[in-house]
Each structure stands twice: as structure tokens, then as C-alpha cells.
């Protein structure tokens, strides 16, 4: 009888892991993906929607079309995980039994966690939000534009910086740049978490007249007064406020008692096993690993998940563990970008922003549907460097 593998979530991590497990184990496993909508969304595209550079329809495909024929798809919402019984309870009734469970349920936005945020700010972390922001930007005729972060952790750490660069270019092209003050309210004491990247990009921010306020972690928004206040006790006035909303782990993780206070799954940094459960693994945004919540992370974790499930099913020694590989782009506006490639042992050394990395991101966005979910991105592609996953000693 084939091993029953249930994958919760149909984003980058869940889809790729399901395909790789099916490919690796063939008839030895029956893989079922549980996804609430049956649709797969390409979230990195929302940034471009907000700036009027992309339309929503480009960013969504049917999950079925991305899965190998041997993988089952249940368009259902998982409401409770029962680790001891080895089942997942579904919202519409019934349950799915599993021998191995992969949790790739991602992160959800919880804008209500910050008072005043929904009424007082815009965001580009959901398709609806990005479309509303695009409309607002078209109406915008100048003033104080502030960009900040209203919760940690959040997906795609470079996104707020990218947005400031791209919106600066957008406003310049619209001829209202001289009437607009742009300021990044950074949660840290520099523009971006990675010091080498910050050192590289801050001169570009200065050159473009983008202001920087440091150690500003948004706590409340007062839409009436047009004021945003920080955890550190400071405030900033705005005419247009763009905030990364707070994130939490999936409801099913919290409801099943598996998550930490934020709903993130305690996960081993190398094995990707959920602490305390031999047959449950997690990847992508759902984990508590202090590493980027990004599609790239999930992309590099998925082969490790597939390999480990295969070794569990076959009773063989695991081949490899996750070495912390992440690769992402950072747009700096005017058709240029830099790249951040690193792992647990190698900090990033981002190159000077150039056209080539912007083109690489453009190409990656367009090739995504045909490559990443299917595991078709070659190991030696620039997106995959610089290092291999590590071997683990167990």
C-alpha cells in the first residue's frame, strides 16, 4: 500500500514539495494537496500591480494545472490537524488520513491587529490591497508618502525598500515627484536588515531624495490626524501611508495547538521536521525559522522535504538537509536591481544594482509558471546559486 502523504497549502512550497515527492516516490506514495481555493497565486507580482505595471489575472493559475497527474487535489479548508490519529479534519466534513504530513500553509495577513491600520493605510501584500493602492496612487497629487512595517515577521523583507524606489520612479514619471516627500519608516537602524545590502542601497536612496527614519516599528495609526505611531514611542505625519500589514501563521496551525504565539510552527532548521513530530514536516512561511519568509526559501526547502519524506517512507538514511539557501532580488528603480544570495554559512554579498538583475527578475516573473512549481529550474541557474544544501549528520 502506498504511503499517504498529505500536503496542506498550494503555494510555492506545497506545490513543489507535492510534485517532487510524487516524482521521487512514484507508486510508493499517494500525495494529496489540500488547498482552500484551488488557485495558486504568484504573490511577488502584487508589488507591480500596486504600481500599475501588472494586472491581477497574470498572477493566478489553477492549482490543478501545476500538479503532476499523480498528485490528488482536494479543494478544501483544513480546520484541525490531529497528529496522534494521523488525520486532518476538513471544513466541509470528513477527514483525510496521512502517514506523513507536510505543512505549507503560509502566512496570513491580520491587519486588524494594528489599530487604525485598515482605515488609515494601504498595502500591496494582497491582490485587493495592491489594486486599491494602484487606484489611490493614480489619485495622488503629492504630499507626504510614508512606507513602513506594521508587524514582524513579514513576507519578502526587501519589499518595502523596493516599493520606495519604485514609487519614487513612478511619481517622477507622473511629474509630481517635486511635490512629494517619500520616507521609509524602517523597523531597524538602517534601510534593510542585511547590513551589506543596506550599505549598498542607502546612497541610492539619498540620491533619489528618499528619507529614512530608523527604529520605527508601527504600533498604531490615527487616520483622523494622519499620524502613525511607533512601538519605540515616536510618530510621523502622512498624507498617504503604505504599510506592510502584520502577519500570522495559518489558523489551522493555531487551532491545532501546533504553533507558537504567532502561529508559526517550531521547525528544525536543517531537517525541517516540526519539533516533537517525526512524521510532520513544514516549509515556507509557515515555519518559525528566523529566515526570510519568501517563495525563494520555500523553493529551496521543497527538495529537502521530498528527500526526507522519501527516506522516511523507504527507511533509508536522509540524503540532505536544508542549508539555509535563499535567493531574492531587490529592485532599486530605474530598471535596475541587485540580488541577495546566501545561506546559513555564507552571508550575502549583493552586487551593485544593475540592469542585468532587473532583467533576471523580469524573466523569473515570466518564467515562474513553467518552472518553479514543477521543479524545472536548473540547479545551476543564477537563481539557485551559490551553495548546495548541506548534509546533515544524524
Amino acid at each position: 500500500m502506498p504511503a499517504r502523504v498529505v500536503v496542506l497549502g498550494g503555494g510555492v512550497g506545497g506545490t513543489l514539495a507535492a510534485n517532487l515527492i510524487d516524482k521521487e516516490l512514484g507508486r510508493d506514495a499517494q500525495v494529496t494537496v489540500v488547498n482552500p481555493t484551488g488557485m495558486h497565486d504568484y504573490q511577488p507580482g502584487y508589488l507591480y500591480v500596486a504600481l500599475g505595471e501588472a494586472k491581477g489575472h497574470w498572477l493566478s493559475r489553477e492549482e490543478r494545472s501545476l500538479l503532476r497527474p499523480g498528485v490528488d487535489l482536494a479543494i478544501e479548508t483544513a480546520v484541525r490537524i490531529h497528529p496522534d490519529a494521523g488525520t486532518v479534519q476538513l471544513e466541509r466534513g470528513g477527514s483525510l488520513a496521512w502517514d506523513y504530513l507536510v505543512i505549507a500553509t503560509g502566512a496570513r495577513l491580520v491587519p486588524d491587529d494594528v489599530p487604525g491600520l485598515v482605515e488609515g493605510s494601504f498595502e500591496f501584500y494582497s491582490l485587493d490591497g495592491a489594486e486599491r493602492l494602484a487606484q489611490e496612487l493614480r489619485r495622488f497629487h503629492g504630499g507626504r508618502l510614508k512606507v513602513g512595517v506594521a508587524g514582524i515577521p513579514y513576507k519578502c523583507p526587501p519589499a518595502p525598500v523596493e516599493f520606495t524606489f519604485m514609487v519614487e520612479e513612478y511619481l517622477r514619471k507622473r511629474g509630481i515627484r517635486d511635490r512629494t516627500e517619500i520616507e521609509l519608516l524602517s523597523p531597524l537602524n538602517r534601510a534593510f536588515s542585511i547590513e551589506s545590502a543596506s550599505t549598498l542601497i542607502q546612497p541610492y536612496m539619498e540620491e533619489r531624495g528618499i528619507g529614512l527614519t530608523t527604529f520605527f516599528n508601527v504600533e498604531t495609526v490615527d487616520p483622523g490626524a494622519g499620524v502613525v505611531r511607533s512601538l519605540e514611542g515616536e510618530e510621523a505625519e502622512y498624507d498617504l501611508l503604505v504599510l506592510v500589514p502584520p502577519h500570522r501563521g495559518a489558523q489551522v496551525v493555531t487551532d491545532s495547538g501546533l504553533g507558537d504565539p504567532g502561529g508559526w510552527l517550531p521547525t528544525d532548521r536543517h531537517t525541517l521536521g516540526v519539533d516533537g513530530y517525526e512524521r510532520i514536516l513544514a516549509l515556507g512561511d509557515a515555519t518559525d525559522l528566523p529566515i526570510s519568509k519568501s517563495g525563494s526559501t520555500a523553493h529551496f526547502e521543497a527538495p529537502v522535504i521530498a528527500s526526507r519524506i522519501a527516506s522516511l517512507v523507504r527507511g533509508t538514511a536522509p540524503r540532505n538537509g536544508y542549508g539555509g539557501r535563499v535567493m531574492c532580488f531587490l529592485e532599486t528603480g530605474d530598471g535596475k536591481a541587485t540580488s541577495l544570495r546566501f545561506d546559513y554559512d555564507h552571508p550575502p554579498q549583493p552586487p551593485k544594482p544593475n540592469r542585468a538583475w532587473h532583467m533576471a527578475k523580469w524573466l523569473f516573473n515570466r518564467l515562474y509558471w513553467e518552472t518553479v512549481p514543477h521543479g524545472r529550474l536548473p540547479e545551476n541557474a543564477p537563481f539557485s546559486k551559490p551553495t548546495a544544501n548541506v548534509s546533515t549528520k544524524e
Partner: protein
Amino acid sequence: MTTTEITRSIDARGMACPGPLMTLIGAIREGSVGDVIEVLSSDEGSKSDIPAWVAKARHELVDVVTEDGYSTFVIRKVR
């Protein structure tokens, strides 16, 4: 090292992005007043970044211990 009881421990060694300080700020947001959070970081920048943020946000830096290749920061949430 002090004998302070640790509420939450974060091993951020080797984790460049979003990084130890960002993870600490997240833990402070999620935590309750009185919680003691321990952060392990191999990032050299943490030695200045973490104490600077803790001072700015008016929490308490209980201890910093530097060991081979990493430092351990102990922070109490005081407000």
C-alpha cells in the same frame, strides 16, 4: 550568564535575513511584559544593533555573553 528564567529562546545564528534584531522585535511584539527573550546571533552587527534598539524601545538588556562565533543577548520586555 545570569540565572534569569528565559521565556523564549531564538537561535538566529547564520540567519542573515530578516536577521536577529528583526526576529527579536517580532518576539517582543508577541510577548508579554516581564518576558525574557534570549537571542543567539552570529552576526557581528548584532553587537551594536540589538543594544541600540533595546535602549531606543526602552526595554532592558539583561545580559550579553560572547562565545566562540556567536553572542547571546538576553532582553526583558518591560513595557
